[in-house]
């Protein structure tokens, strides 16, 4: 082993790159297999119900679906390697890459805004509740927090979205009900996508914070007689970051998946809605490209989070291994 790889950072990054490549390969195979498992003949659906048997066969030929599966896979695989995702099956003149480039920003924006809101709100809320309920004080807050977060967590995101639309768009007329044309259009979808994660993350922060606040180093900070706000923000928060980051990795993955539903509810022109449409339309060229993108994004986000974790707590460089 070259000496440079024995150093923590290069070794760590190398391992991450390896994981990343492995995951991408798995993803390429998975997307291909998935598409083949979806029932419904793409040629029949794309050609249309009124199409004759010959026309369906012609479409099959155009899509290359009449070739052996392995040949199809090889073409797809080589295409992905050369960053050529090919054309949409349903719309032969449209490149998959163009569609992704056009719609990715919409999904990325709500997911990133959503995760940012989630982390900030959860840290503040969780710490606050943990601080106020220390030593089992303020039991009403304890149970109130429990009720509200548990209820919001149990509600599916599409119900939350519908409630938001009814209240803020339809009844009060404050915000747009859907689409993505104005800045205000971002408010409802990001809120809808963040409410659940905020509840689960603030519950976690609150529990972790209850432990952190009892640690010796918090007593040390107290001994310096600094304000409670500073004790929390400077001395407690850094110790909550590891678990918060770890959880936000999971949440981000869930959010990108959850975008499928949120984008549907809010007619948001992002990848999530498009992937659903493409599956319904059996436009698997598009489906594969998008799922590949979504998966790659989720994996990238997790790699980034692992790197952030290592920055926050350099001990994970050595010890972390796969136990992130």
């Amino acid at each position: 082993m070259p000496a440079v790889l024995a150093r923590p950072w290069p070794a760590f990054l190398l391992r991450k790159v390896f994981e990343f490549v492995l995951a991408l390969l798995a993803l390429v195979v998975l997307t291909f297999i998935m598409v083949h498992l979806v029932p419904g003949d793409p040629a029949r659906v794309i050609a249309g119900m009124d199409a004759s048997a010959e026309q369906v066969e012609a479409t099959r030929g155009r899509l290359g679906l009449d070739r052996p599966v392995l040949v199809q896979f090889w073409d797809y695989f080589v295409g992905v390697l050369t960053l050529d995702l090919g054309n949409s099956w349903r719309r032969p003149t449209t490149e998959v890459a163009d569609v992704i480039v056009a719609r990715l920003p919409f999904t990325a924006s709500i997911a990133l805004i959503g995760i940012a809101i989630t982390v900030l709100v959860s840290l503040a809320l969780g710490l606050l509740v943990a601080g106020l309920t220390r030593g089992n004080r303020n039991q009403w807050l304890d149970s109130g927090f429990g009720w509200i977060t548990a209820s919001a967590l149990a509600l599916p995101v599409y119900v939350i979205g519908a409630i938001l639309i009814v209240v803020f768009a339809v009844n009060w007329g404050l915000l747009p009900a859907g689409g993505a044309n104005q800045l205000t259009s971002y408010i409802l979808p990001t809120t809808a996508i963040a409410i659940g994660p905020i509840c689960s993350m603030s519950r976690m922060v609150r529990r972790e914070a209850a432990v952190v606040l009892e640690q010796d180093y918090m007593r040390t900070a107290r001994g310096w007689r600094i304000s409670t706000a500073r004790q929390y923000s400077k001395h407690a928060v850094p110790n909550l970051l590891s678990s918060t980051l770890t959880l936000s990795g999971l949440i981000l993955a869930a959010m990108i998946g959850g975008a499928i539903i949120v984008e549907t509810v809010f007619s948001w022109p992002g990848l999530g809605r498009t992937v659903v449409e493409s599956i319904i339309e059996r436009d698997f060229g598009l489906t594969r490209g998008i799922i590949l993108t979504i998966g790659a994004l989720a994996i990238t986000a997790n790699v980034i989070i692992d790197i952030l974790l290592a920055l926050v707590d350099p001990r994970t460089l050595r010890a972390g291994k796969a136990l992130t």
Partner: protein
Amino acid sequence: MTQASKRGRRLGAALCIGALALAGCTTEDGSIEADGTTEGNGDGPHTDTIRGAWITDPVGFLPMTTTATDDYRAARLLYDTVLRRDIDGELIGGIADDYQLEESGLTLTIGEGHTCADGTEITPTVVADSLTYFADETESAVQRDGVFGPGEATITADDDASTVVIELSEPHSDLPAGLAIPQSGIVCPAGLEDPESTAAGQVEAAFSGPYVLSEANDGVSYVFELREGYDSWPDYSEELEGVPAQYLEFYVGIDDTVANQLLTDELDVAPVTDQELDRFEDEEGYDQTTVTTGEFYILFNHGEQSPFQDEEMRRALAQIVDRETLAEIVDPNGELIATLGDENMQCANTDFSLLEDYDAEAASEALDGVQVNVIGTNAIGQNGAGAIYVQEQLLAAGAEVELQNLDVGTWVTDIYEEPEWWDVTVFATVNNIGTISWGLGTVIGVPHTEGGRNTSVSNNPAATEALDAALAAGSEEEMCEYYQIAQEEALAAVDFIPISMDTRTFVIRDGFTIYGPGGNEDLTSLRILD
């Protein structure tokens, strides 16, 4: 069929979101989202833009190769047809001033002053070239046979006489109706030179219709701009109120939010789902226009594995279906039908006494203990309520029922390619051509397994013969006579159970209007009222 592929086939349902339906494949209630455009733009009549909603991105902009609802919508805006439907449904002139139906085809008289978007004049040669391209495009022009019939079409132009003559090797009385559908839109020479770019919407000179495509934001919106100096509007028997919009903006999305966006003034006009129409009932400032898209009916599998190869079983099922209830479930706005077409359609049967009466008791004897596989799609009736109704009625009659409510794609595939897997379904045709033969052809005639359109694979020689004769008829009277025989024979054998018209209702904000010429959707009839 293997167990594995059976399982595999079912996935699609998994993947279908709610009421979202396959574009253009059946009968979804239109669609979509949109979003508020620039502020103040849509407030009342002081605007030159109409904001509407589409289901999804159009497949392409070459009219003859289009396959889905939004494609037809775009094609209608971008390309004019030789014939048009009048407000009451009669065929009237478009690019052609007139037509003459003959036994071997028809002769069109092309009007003067029609131009392409680049100013090229639309001559008989231009028309003939475009129609020839359509007739030759057998691989991807899905409606080719619907328009020209199964035989060969020879199209000749006579620029001096201003005529185009279409000769068919096999007579096809649906031809005039077929020439009025958006797929028959005339593509100007520049478009035929480069069909691929035209399909991508990049050849403006290809357009012969009132609008050109000025902006296409994939997945977000499509904007159409009125051609300067366009003056080829159809000569409707009544004048359309208002003025055409300078811009038409269509937002792409899903129907969940359309009603909301109409109510929050983010949209001016859009099709709204049946269950959401109630929201506009007590709302001031909105109007509705209903168009029809096709017919709902119960489709039997007449194949060997199905209990419904037996006429008595089909009759029994007809006896337990209360068509009024089922119509209410699948489309509360659709009128009951006694054939596969609307009662105003040429040669439509309107005699409801030809249908079976409700008689659950009689049916129970036949159906008790019978194993029935009901297949359905969640696009027909809310969450697939249509198939659920049939299932519940069968259960009540003592049958053993297995139901699969699938997404449209799987459902369509199964119906055509897995005949051993289903016995009955609630079906919907999109009656693209707008004729009786189009709907009837899905339940009688040559089975689809033998290259025909008969989805039910029924065997009814008498009805089939009459249908063929109607299509070959030289006069309307003769045609209707044969059609009546075909309809009576099919209904007598309970080859299918007609239910109701499949409709789509547009909600329009005050200050705007849309017409439905002949009950069809036609976005060129969108107008801004003053």
